[in-house]
C-alpha cells in the first residue's frame, strides 16, 4: 500500500490505483467526461482526451488527468483549488465553443453528460466564440449520427472496436476536423454496422441517438381505421421504471400494461408469448439436430446457435457469412409475434393485415432495423410496423400525461399476452438457452423436469460453458454476450475446436437488459445486475415456467400451426440468412 494525500485527506491505496479511484474511495467525486468504466465487465475507456478531470499534483509542472494518473508514495493532490477550477472551466468552455447550444430540442436533453457538467460547473456564458465544425448528418434505419455534437470522447469507438469487434467506428481526420466516423466517412447503413446500439448506450452527448418512431405510433393510435396492438419485450419491464425515478431492477410489468392501455392500444400483448413460441420452434430444431447427431448423422451441423438477437444476426451475416447455415432458422420473438399477429390474430379479428398495426417495445435498436428487413413483409406490409425503445416508450407515457408511478397493475390481454417464466428470462444473457433447456429436457427424456433452475447457465461472465444432464446424456452449452466474445466462439467453431451442442449469443453486454434502447446506465453496471436479478425474480413468480406448458401456445398449434417445424410454422416462424460480407459501393 502507498500513502497519498488528496485534498488534505490522508489515505492508503494499492499501487496502480488512479487518482480518480483513490479520490472516489474517500468521497471526492472528480468530474469526468470521456472516461467510462463498466465495472462488472472490466471495460474501461480512458483516453485522457477531454481533460475535465485535471487535478494539481504537488511537484508536477502541469495539471494531471486524474483518470489516467497513477498514485505514488507521498503524492499530494488538490482536486479543486483555484488553478484547477479555472483550467477545468476553460477546458469545458472550449469544448462547448465547438458544440451546438440547441439543448432545449436535443434528443439527449436531460440525460446528456455534457449538459450536466455545464450545469454542475455553473457555465453561464461561453467566452470563446469562433468557427464551429460541421458534418453531414447520418441517418440509418436505427441510429442517427449527429456528429456536430461529438466531443471525441471515443467511448463509441471503444465499444465498437474493443468490446463488439465490429470495427465500424474510428477517429478520422486531424485537429479541428477530427471526428469519429465509419471508413471513408460513409453512412452507417453502407458499413458493417450491426445496429447493436452500444455506441448509443455510452455516448455522453446527443451525437449518437436512436431513430425516433414515437410520432408514427401516435399517428397510428389516432387513426380510427386501424387496430393497433403492442408487444413488450421481457427486458423492458425491469428497466422502464428507471425513467420514472424508480430504483434499478423495479419490476413494472403491471404498470406498463396499464400505461399502454391508457395510451390507446387496442390490445396489449407480450413478446414473451412469442418467446415461448420461439422455444418450441428453436428447441425442436435443437433437439432434431442433437438427436440426429447422436444417431451418427455426419451431415448435421453442430453447435446450433441461437438467432433471437438481431444485432448478432447482422454480425454473422457481415463477418461470418460462410457459417450462415449454423444458427437456428427460428425468427426472433419480435418477428414471430408480428407474423402470428398479422395472420392468426388478424383472421380472428376478421380484419385485413393492412389495418392491423403492430408496435413493439424493445430494449434494442437493432430491432428497428430487423422489422424493416424485406423478408419480414407481405405485399409491402411489414409484420412489425414500428419498434420503439424503452426510452421512447417513457416519452410516449410522459406525453400522454400518465402519472406512471401511481398506476394500478393490470394484466396483458389474451391470447398473445400469456407467457411462462421461461420467456421472461429471454431478456438476460443465459436466459434463452435456459428456457430452451427446460423444454428440450422434457421432450428429449419424456420425463417431468422437477428443478427448472439451471443455475450453471446464469451469471455475467463474458463467456460461460456448462453441461446440462438430459437424463444421462450430457448436453454441452456455450454462452457469450458482447459480440467480441461471440467472435471468439465463432472462430473456435470455424477452426473445428468447438465441441458444444448449442450456443446462446446476445450482442449486448448483459443481454437485452443492457440493450442500446434501454434507459442509460451512465457507466453504472450495477444497474444491469439489478435488472438481471429482477428478471429471474419475475420468472419465479410465474405459475408456468416451461414454454411448452403455455396453454395459448398449445392452442395456437392446435388451431393454426399444426406442430413445431410444420410447413406453416416454417413459412411464418423461420427465416434464412444472407451473405452481407460485401458492403455497398462507396459513392465517390
Amino acid at each position: 500500500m502507498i500513502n497519498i494525500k488528496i485534498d488534505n485527506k490522508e489515505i492508503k491505496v494499492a499501487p496502480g490505483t488512479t487518482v480518480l479511484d483513490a479520490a472516489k474511495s474517500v468521497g471526492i467525486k472528480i468530474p469526468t467526461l470521456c472516461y467510462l468504466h463498466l465495472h462488472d465487465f472490466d471495460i474501461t475507456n480512458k483516453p485522457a482526451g477531454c481533460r475535465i478531470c485535471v487535478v494539481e499534483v504537488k511537484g508536477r509542472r502541469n495539471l494531471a488527468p486524474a483518470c489516467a494518473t497513477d498514485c505514488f508514495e507521498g503524492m499530494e493532490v488538490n482536486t479543486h483549488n483555484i488553478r484547477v477550477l479555472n483550467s477545468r472551466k476553460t477546458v469545458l468552455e472550449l469544448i462547448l465553443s465547438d458544440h451546438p447550444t440547441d439543448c432545449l430540442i436535443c434528443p439527449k436533453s436531460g440525460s446528456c453528460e455534457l449538459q450536466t457538467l455545464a450545469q454542475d460547473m455553473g457555465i453561464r456564458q461561453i467566452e470563446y466564440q469562433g468557427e464551429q465544425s460541421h458534418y453531414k448528418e447520418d441517418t440509418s434505419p436505427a441510429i442517427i449520427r449527429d456528429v456536430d455534437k461529438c466531443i471525441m470522447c471515443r467511448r463509441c469507438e471503444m465499444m465498437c472496436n474493443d468490446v463488439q469487434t465490429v470495427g465500424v467506428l474510428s477517429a478520422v481526420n486531424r485537429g479541428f476536423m477530427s471526428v469519429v466516423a465509419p471508413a471513408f466517412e460513409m453512412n452507417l447503413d453502407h458499413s458493417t454496422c450491426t445496429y447493436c446500439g452500444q455506441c448509443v448506450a455510452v455516448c455522453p452527448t446527443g451525437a449518437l441517438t436512436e431513430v425516433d418512431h414515437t410520432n408514427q405510433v401516435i399517428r397510428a393510435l389516432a387513426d380510427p381505421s386501424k387496430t393497433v396492438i403492442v408487444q413488450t419485450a421481457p427486458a423492458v419491464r425491469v428497466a422502464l421504471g428507471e425513467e420514472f425515478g424508480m430504483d434499478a431492477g423495479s419490476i413494472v410489468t403491471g404498470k406498463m400494461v396499464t400505461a399502454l392501455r391508457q395510451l390507446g392500444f387496442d390490445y396489449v400483448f407480450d413478446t414473451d408469448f412469442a418467446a415461448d413460441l420461439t422455444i418450441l420452434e428453436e428447441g425442436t430444431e435443437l433437439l432434431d439436430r442433437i438427436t440426429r447427431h447422436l444417431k451418427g448423422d455426419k451431415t448435421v451441423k453442430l453447435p446450433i446457435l441461437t438467432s433471437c438477437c438481431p444485432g448478432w444476426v447482422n454480425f454473422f451475416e457481415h463477418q461470418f457469412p460462410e457459417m450462415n447455415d449454423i444458427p437456428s432458422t427460428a425468427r426472433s420473438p419480435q418477428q414471430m409475434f408480428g407474423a402470428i399477429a398479422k395472420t392468426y390474430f388478424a383472421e380472428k379479428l376478421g380484419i385485413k393485415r393492412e389495418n392491423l398495426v403492430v408496435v413493439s417495445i424493445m430494449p434494442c435498436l437493432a430491432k428497428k432495423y430487423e422489422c424493416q428487413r424485406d423478408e419480414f413483409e407481405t405485399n409491402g406490409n411489414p409484420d412489425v410496423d414500428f419498434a420503439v425503445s424503452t426510452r421512447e416508450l417513457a416519452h410516449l407515457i410522459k406525453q400522454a400525461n400518465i402519472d406512471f408511478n401511481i398506476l394500478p397493475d393490470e394484466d396483458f390481454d389474451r391470447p398473445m399476452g400469456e407467457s411462462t417464466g421461461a420467456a421472461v428470462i429471454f431478456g438476460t444473457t443465459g436466459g434463452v438457452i435456459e428456457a430452451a433447456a427446460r423444454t428440450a429436457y422434457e421432450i428429449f427424456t419424456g420425463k417431468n423436469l422437477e428443478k427448472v433452475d439451471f443455475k450453471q447457465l446464469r451469471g455475467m461472465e463474458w463467456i460461460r460453458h456448462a453441461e446440462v444432464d438430459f437424463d444421462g446424456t450430457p448436453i454441452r452449452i456455450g454462452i457469450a454476450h458482447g459480440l467480441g466474445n461471440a467472435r471468439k466462439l465463432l472462430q473456435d467453431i470455424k477452426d473445428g475446436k468447438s465441441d458444444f451442442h448449442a450456443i446462446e449469443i446476445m450482442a449486448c453486454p448483459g443481454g437485452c437488459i443492457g440493450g442500446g434502447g434501454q434507459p442509460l446506465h451512465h457507466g453504472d453496471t450495477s444497474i444491469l445486475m439489478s435488472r438481471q436479478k429482477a428478471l429471474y425474480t419475475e420468472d419465479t413468480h410465474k405459475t408456468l415456467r416451461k414454454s411448452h406448458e403455455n396453454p395459448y401456445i398449445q392452442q395456437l398449434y392446435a388451431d393454426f400451426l399444426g406442430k413445431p417445424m410444420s410447413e406453416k410454422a416454417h413459412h411464418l416462424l423461420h427465416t434464412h440468412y444472407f451473405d452481407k460480407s460485401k458492403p455497398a459501393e462507396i459513392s465517390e
Partner: protein
Amino acid sequence: MANIKINEQKVQQIEAICKKFNNEKGELINVLHQTQSLVGYLPAEVQEIIAKNLNCSVAHVYGVVTFYSFFTMIPKGEFPISICMGTACYVRGAEKVLDEFKRILNVPVGQTTPDGKFSLSCLRCVGACGLAPVVMVGEKVYGRVSPDGVKDIIKEYK
C-alpha cells in the same frame, strides 16, 4: 466495397509489403508509407487490402490515412509540384508563389488537374533554405522562385 480496380499484380505487391512487416497491425504506418510509394496514393480499395492483411478495421486504416498529411487518397499528377512552406521560404514569399500556382493551374492544394498532369502540395523544408522560396517539381528543385517565374516553370512541362 469499391470494386477492385487496381491490377492483380499491384494487389500482390501490396500483400507482399504487408507480409514484409509480418502482417503486424502496429506496422500500419510503415505499410502505408511503402504502399503509397508503390501505388502513388492510397485509394479505398488499397486501404481495404491492407486492413484485411493486417487484420484491423478499414475504419482504423482510414483514420490513420486521414490523420497524416503525408498520406493521400488522391492520385498525384504526372508532375507533382510541391511548394515549401517552411519558415525561411514562407517569410520570403512562398505563399504568393503558391497562390500563383493555384491561379494558373486552377486547383487547390492537395488536388490534381483534371488532365492528370499536375498536382499541387505543400511541404515543410527541403533543406535548401538558402534558395528560399523553394519549389519542387518531381525531384527537380527550383530556388528563389518569384510569382512571375511560376508560369515559366509550368511551361517547361506542358
